[in-house]
C-alpha cells in the first residue's frame, strides 16, 4: 500500500476521534454564555490542568522549538527557562483573578479591567489589543497544521485543503461545545503528544548515535559553539536570555486565552496546586530539543529549520508512525487555535462590540454574536494563512510583546490602590507604540536586549509616574 495513503488514513482517524470528543463534550450541559466561555467555573485540578497544558503545547513548541534547536542551538534553552517561571508567576496572580471572577461573574480578561478601572474605552482598548494579537497566533497554528499534514502525508494532501478542513472542524466544535469541548479534545492530544515526544526523543538519538549522551558528545565535537549561547546566532546572548525569559514568563498569562482559563477553575487553590505541578509537564520539552539536535548532524542541509522534527521522523520511522505524529501534530494545532478563536470571539462581542456600538444587547445576543464571530475569525485567519506567509514569526513576536503591555494594568490593578485609569492608559499606549516602533523596524533585539522587555519597563515606569501625578484628580 502507498505510504501516503497509510499516513493520511492514520491522520484522518486521529483527527476524527478528537473532533468527536469535542462535539460530545456538550452532552448534558446547556450552553449559555457562562458555560460556553468558562465552563460554569466548575473545572477541578484535572480539567484545568488539561486546558492549560493544551494551551501551552502548540505547534510552536513542537516544530518551532525543534527548529530553533536545529538552526540556533543553545538559545532554545530560553523555552526551558520560561515554562517553569511562567507557572511560578501564575501562582501569584491567577488565584486572585479567579476569585475576582467568581465575585463579579467575569468571563474575559477585559472584564477584569472593566471591574477594576470602570472605563469602557480602556476595556475596549484591552479587548482590541487581545483580538489583534490573537489573530496572527491562530494563523501560526494554521500554517503549522498545513506543514504538518503536508509533510506527514508525503505530500499526499496539500496544505491549503488540510487547513480548510481542519479549521472547519475547529470552528464547528468551538461553536457547539465551547471551552468544555476544548478541554476534552486536549486529553487525546496530550496523550498522543506525550507518547510521541518521549518515544521519538529517546529513539532518534539512540538510532543514530547510540544514546542521548553520545549524541551530545558528537554535536559538541562537530560544532562546539552550538551548545552554549549565543549558539549559531550573533545576538542571542545572556542579556537577551535574561530579558526574554523575564518578558515571556511574566506575560505568558497576559494572553487573553491563558488569562481566561483561570475563570474555569473551581477555586483559587485549584490554580495554586496546578501551578505547583505544571513544570513537571515541561519535562517532555528537552526530548523535542534532542530531535532537533540530532538533525544538526544527520540532516545538515534542511532548507527550513521548522521541518527538522518531521523530517527526522520521516527519515527514521515507517508511514503509519509518521501518521500518528502527523495526527498528534494536527490536534496540537487545533486545540490551541480553538481556545484562541474562542477568546478572541468573546472579547470582540462582549467587550468591544456591545459597550461601544450596541449597549442594549442582552447576554443571549452577546453569546450568539460570539459564536458567529468564531466563524468570522476562523475565515479571517484562514485568509491570512493562505495569502501571507513571509513575516509570520515576526507578527507573532509583535503579538507577544503587545499582550505583555497589559501586565502593569493587571498587576497594579490587583495589588495597588493608587494606580489610576489615566496611568494605565498612558503606560499601555506608550508600551505598544514602542513595541511597534522597535520591532517593525527590525530593531529586536535592541542592543542585545529583548525589545518587548524594554517597552514593558517603560510601560511600568510611566504607569507608576502618571498614576502618582493623577491620583489626586481621580475619585480617591
Amino acid at each position, binding site marked *: 500500500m502507498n505510504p501516503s495513503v497509510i499516513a493520511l488514513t492514520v491522520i484522518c482517524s486521529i483527527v476524527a476521534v478528537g473532533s468527536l470528543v469535542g462535539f460530545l463534550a456538550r452532552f448534558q450541559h446547556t450552553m449559555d454564555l457562562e458555560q460556553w466561555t468558562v465552563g460554569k467555573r466548575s473545572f477541578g485540578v484535572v480539567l484545568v490542568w488539561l486546558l492549560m497544558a493544551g494551551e501551552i503545547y502548540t505547534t510552536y513548541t513542537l516544530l518551532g522549538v525543534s527548529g530553533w534547536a536545529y538552526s540556533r542551538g543553545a538559545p532554545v534553552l530560553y523555552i*526551558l527557562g520560561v515554562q517553569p517561571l511562567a507557572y511560578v508567576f501564575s501562582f501569584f496572580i491567577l488565584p486572585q483573578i479567579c476569585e475576582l471572577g467568581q465575585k463579579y461573574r467575569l468571563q474575559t480578561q477585559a472584564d477584569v479591567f472593566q471591574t477594576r478601572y470602570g472605563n469602557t474605552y480602556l476595556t475596549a482598548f484591552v479587548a482590541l489589543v487581545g483580538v489583534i494579537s490573537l489573530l496572527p497566533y491562530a494563523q501560526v497554528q494554521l500554517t503549522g497544521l498545513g506543514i504538518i499534514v503536508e509533510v506527514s502525508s508525503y505530500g499526499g494532501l496539500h496544505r491549503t485543503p488540510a487547513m480548510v478542513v481542519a479549521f472547519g472542524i475547529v470552528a464547528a466544535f468551538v461553536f457547539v461545545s465551547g471551552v468544555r469541548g476544548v478541554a476534552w479534545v486536549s486529553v487525546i492530544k496530550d496523550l498522543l503528544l506525550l507518547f510521541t515526544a518521549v518515544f521519538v526523543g529517546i529513539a532518534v538519538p539512540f538510532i543514530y548515535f547510540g544514546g*542521548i549522551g553520545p549524541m*551530545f558528545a558528537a554535536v559538541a565535537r562537530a560544532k562546539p559553539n552550538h*551548545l*552554549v549561547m549565543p549558539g549559531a546566532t550573533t545576538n542571542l546572548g545572556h542579556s537577551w536570555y*535574561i530579558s526574554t525569559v523575564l518578558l515571556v514568563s511574566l506575560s505568558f498569562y497576559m494572553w487573553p486565552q491563558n488569562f481566561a482559563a483561570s475563570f474555569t477553575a473551581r477555586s483559587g487553590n485549584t490554580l*495554586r496546586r496546578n501551578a*505547583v505541578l505544571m513544570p*513537571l509537564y515541561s519535562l517532555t520539552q528537552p526530548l523535542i530539543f534532542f530531535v532537533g539536535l540530532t538533525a544538526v548532524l544527520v540532516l545538515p542541509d534542511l532548507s527550513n529549520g521548522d521541518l527538522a522534527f518531521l523530517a527526522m521522523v520521516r527519515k527514521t520511522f515507517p508511514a503509519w508512525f509518521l501518521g500518528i505524529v502527523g495526527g498528534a501534530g494536527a490536534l496540537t494545532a487545533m486545540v490551541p487555535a480553538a481556545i484562541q478563536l474562542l477568546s478572541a470571539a468573546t472579547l470582540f462581542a462582549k467587550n468591544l462590540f456591545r459597550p461601544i456600538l450596541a449597549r442594549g444587547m442582552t447576554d443571549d445576543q452577546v453569546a450568539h454574536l460570539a459564536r458567529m464571530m468564531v466563524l468570522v475569525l476562523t475565515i479571517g485567519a484562514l485568509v491570512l494563512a493562505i495569502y501571507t506567509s513571509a513575516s509570520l514569526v515576526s507578527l507573532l513576536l509583535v503579538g507577544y510583546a503587545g499582550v505583555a503591555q497589559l501586565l502593569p494594568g493587571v498587576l497594579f490593578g490587583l495589588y495597588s490602590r493608587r494606580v489610576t485609569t489615566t496611568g494605565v492608559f498612558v503606560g499601555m499606549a506608550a508600551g505598544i507604540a514602542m513595541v511597534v516602533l522597535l520591532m517593525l523596524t527590525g530593531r529586536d533585539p535592541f542592543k542585545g536586549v529583548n525589545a518587548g522587555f524594554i517597552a514593558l519597563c517603560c510601560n511600568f515606569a510611566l504607569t507608576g509616574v502618571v498614576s502618582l501625578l493623577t491620583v489626586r484628580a481621580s475619585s480617591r
Partner: protein
Amino acid sequence: MKPPSLGAILLGLIPFAATCFSVALWDRVHPMIFGVPFNFFWLILWLLLTPVCMWGAYRLEASRQRDTDHEDGGTH
C-alpha cells in the same frame, strides 16, 4: 485583593534566581552530567526543583487562607 505572603514570594524568587539571572554562571557545556551538557542539565534539574519550591509556597498560602476563613467563620 490580599497580596501573597512574603514567604511565598521569596520561595517563588528562588527559581527566578536559579534559572534566569544566573545564566552566566551555568551556561557551559562542561562538566557534562549523565552525558548532557551542564546548561541543559541545570535547567532540566530546575523543572524538578521548581515544584518543590512552589509546594512550600502552596503550604504557606493554604494555611494562611484557612486562618482567614476561620476568622470569617467566627465573625459572621
